[in-house]
């Protein structure tokens, strides 16, 4: 019978897989989420109606909990504002961990009444308890940190030692419990210690590394679900859990890569150190953007402005700018060029190059028009320009170029700056634009960066 049910669960698992697959591309992600949800609904349905060996059904409790939980979930998720999403995910993840924690405790309690006593099953359940607890408490701490309820400065001294100690103690007690199998108190102790470990594990991770930690905790919840699946010999839990566990693990690694950090680094950070995500220049930080994010930002924009400067000329990147324009226009993104009067090194420098690349004159905006258009701009790509987009000309009376008309690039929503380094332009003065929160830097030769961007964009268009 279990086998037949499992066969039916297969449908759910398949839907999970399809869902995850679709979730990994921008075009299909939305439907992927729905498909996964469908799989889940179907699984729950089967769990509700499939025959069980014993028990009284207790549908009152079940439906009550389902309705209540569903209501809360919906309510919370529709109310939360966009910027609070990550902490929400963390919170939900904690609840999943709690779920695993609760059922494994219940099962462990039940073990004493079962006739057949399998060591392997017991070990599995114990592991589910352990991992579920860590996921639960860890996620809550992550939630607290992200929402600001727990201050980043609340750090444990010698966290490294404490974590190690806790882990060793946990393993010792678990081993002992496996030998004796008797004391229910030890099980409770294991749960408490696991919860504690979850807290200390997460508490010391730097704020910027939080997403990575959440991903780890997410994977752990998956693993605990899979372990619970073993307990119940239930395919959907098992497979769903494994899928989440494995994809979560890989996602963790990818996130580290995207942040240019190694996992060990993040965890080491978690064990005491503090490493920020952004590069440090003097006492200011600049934010780097990777090609993928940049390409998605562009892809889903309505208006994009390309701001060419001397660097575009040096890189001879005019033709690729035009290609970028063509590609974006193809997906109905509006592209304009903002030509500053003194961009480049001779009057009309940009015009000459863009004409060579066959850019339509009608797409060239001069300073005034550009500044108007910038207000409605989603992304401004600065291709090797510097002085002509220096906001100190607007707001820093101490600047040597104060009063010079510049492109008011910060009127747009996002700015991506393509240049090779942090070095300054013709005027030799620093540019606060690069440190602005709206700005992301894409370092490297402009032609190369644009080429990469183009290749990436082609995969999503």
């Amino acid at each position: 019978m279990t086998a037949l049910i499992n066969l039916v669960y297969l449908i759910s698992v398949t839907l999970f897989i399809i869902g995850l697959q679709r979730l990994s591309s921008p075009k299909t992600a939305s439907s992927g989420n729905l498909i996964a949800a469908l799989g889940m609904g179907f699984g729950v349905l089967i769990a509700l109606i499939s025959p069980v060996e014993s028990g009284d059904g207790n549908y009152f409790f079940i439906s009550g909990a389902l309705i209540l939980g569903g209501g809360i979930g919906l309510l919370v998720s529709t109310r939360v504002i966009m910027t609070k999403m990550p902490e929400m995910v963390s919170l939900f993840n904690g609840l999943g961990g709690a779920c695993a924690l609760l059922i494994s405790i219940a099962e462990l309690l039940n073990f004493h009444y079962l006739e057949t006593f399998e060591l392997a099953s017991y070990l599995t359940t114990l592991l589910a308890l352990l991992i579920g607890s860590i996921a639960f408490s860890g996620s809550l701490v992550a939630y607290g940190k992200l929402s600001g309820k727990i201050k980043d400065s609340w750090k444990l001294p010698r966290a490294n030692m404490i974590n190690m100690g806790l882990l060793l103690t946990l393993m010792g007690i678990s081993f002992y419990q496996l030998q004796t199998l008797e004391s229910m108190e030890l099980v409770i102790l294991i749960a408490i210690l696991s919860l504690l470990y979850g807290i200390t594990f997460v508490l010391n991770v730097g704020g910027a590394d939080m997403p990575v930690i959440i991903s780890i905790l997410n994977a752990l919840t998956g693993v605990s679900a899979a372990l619970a699946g073993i307990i119940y010999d239930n395919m959907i839990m098992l497979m769903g859990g494994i899928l989440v566990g494995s994809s979560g693990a890989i996602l963790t690694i990818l996130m580290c890569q995207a942040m240019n950090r190694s996992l060990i680094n993040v965890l080491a950070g978690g064990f005491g150190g503090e490493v920020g995500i952004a590069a440090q220049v003097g006492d200011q930080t600049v934010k780097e953007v990777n090609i993928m994010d940049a390409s998605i930002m562009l892809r889903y924009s309505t208006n994009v402005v390309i701001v060419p400067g001397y660097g575009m000329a040096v890189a001879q990147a005019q033709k690729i700018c035009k290609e970028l324009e063509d590609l974006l226009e193809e997906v109905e993104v509006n592209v304009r060029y903002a030509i500053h009067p003194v961009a480049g090194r001779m009057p009309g420098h940009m015009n000459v190059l863009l004409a060579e690349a066959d850019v339509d004159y009608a797409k060239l905006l001069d300073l005034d028009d550009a500044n108007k258009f910038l207000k409605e701009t989603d992304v401004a790509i600065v291709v090797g320009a510097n002085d002509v987009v220096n906001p100190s000309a607007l707001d820093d009376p101490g600047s040597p170029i104060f009063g010079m008309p510049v492109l008011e690039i910060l009127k747009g929503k996002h700015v991506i700056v393509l240049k090779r380094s942090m070095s300054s332009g013709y005027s030799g003065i620093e540019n606060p634009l690069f440190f602005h929160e709206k700005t992301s830097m894409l370092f490297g030769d402009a032609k190369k960066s644009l080429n990469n961007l183009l290749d990436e964009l082609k995969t999503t268009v």
Partner: protein
Amino acid sequence: MNLIIEILINQLTILFALIMAVFLGFELISKVPTVLHTPLMSGANAISGVVIIGAIILVRSSGSEDYLSLFFGSLAILLGTINVVGGHAVTNRMLQMFRKK
């Protein structure tokens, strides 16, 4: 050690599934653009809420006087449902931004 080998052998299905799942997970995820990291994590998190099925089974197969199980189980269902429903809903909202206006 023996215990582990025993488990491994008994759960060969799982082991195979595991290996496959790891590869599958890798292939599925490795080409994900970074902007999708958070939605994907959120979606995966919602799926991990599949553990409520265990909770449902637990409650269904408990005696109606087994208060401990009922309490733990119902609570587990509650929390798990929040995870599942909230998770999918939040993911959905995040993904709104990819729908071209």
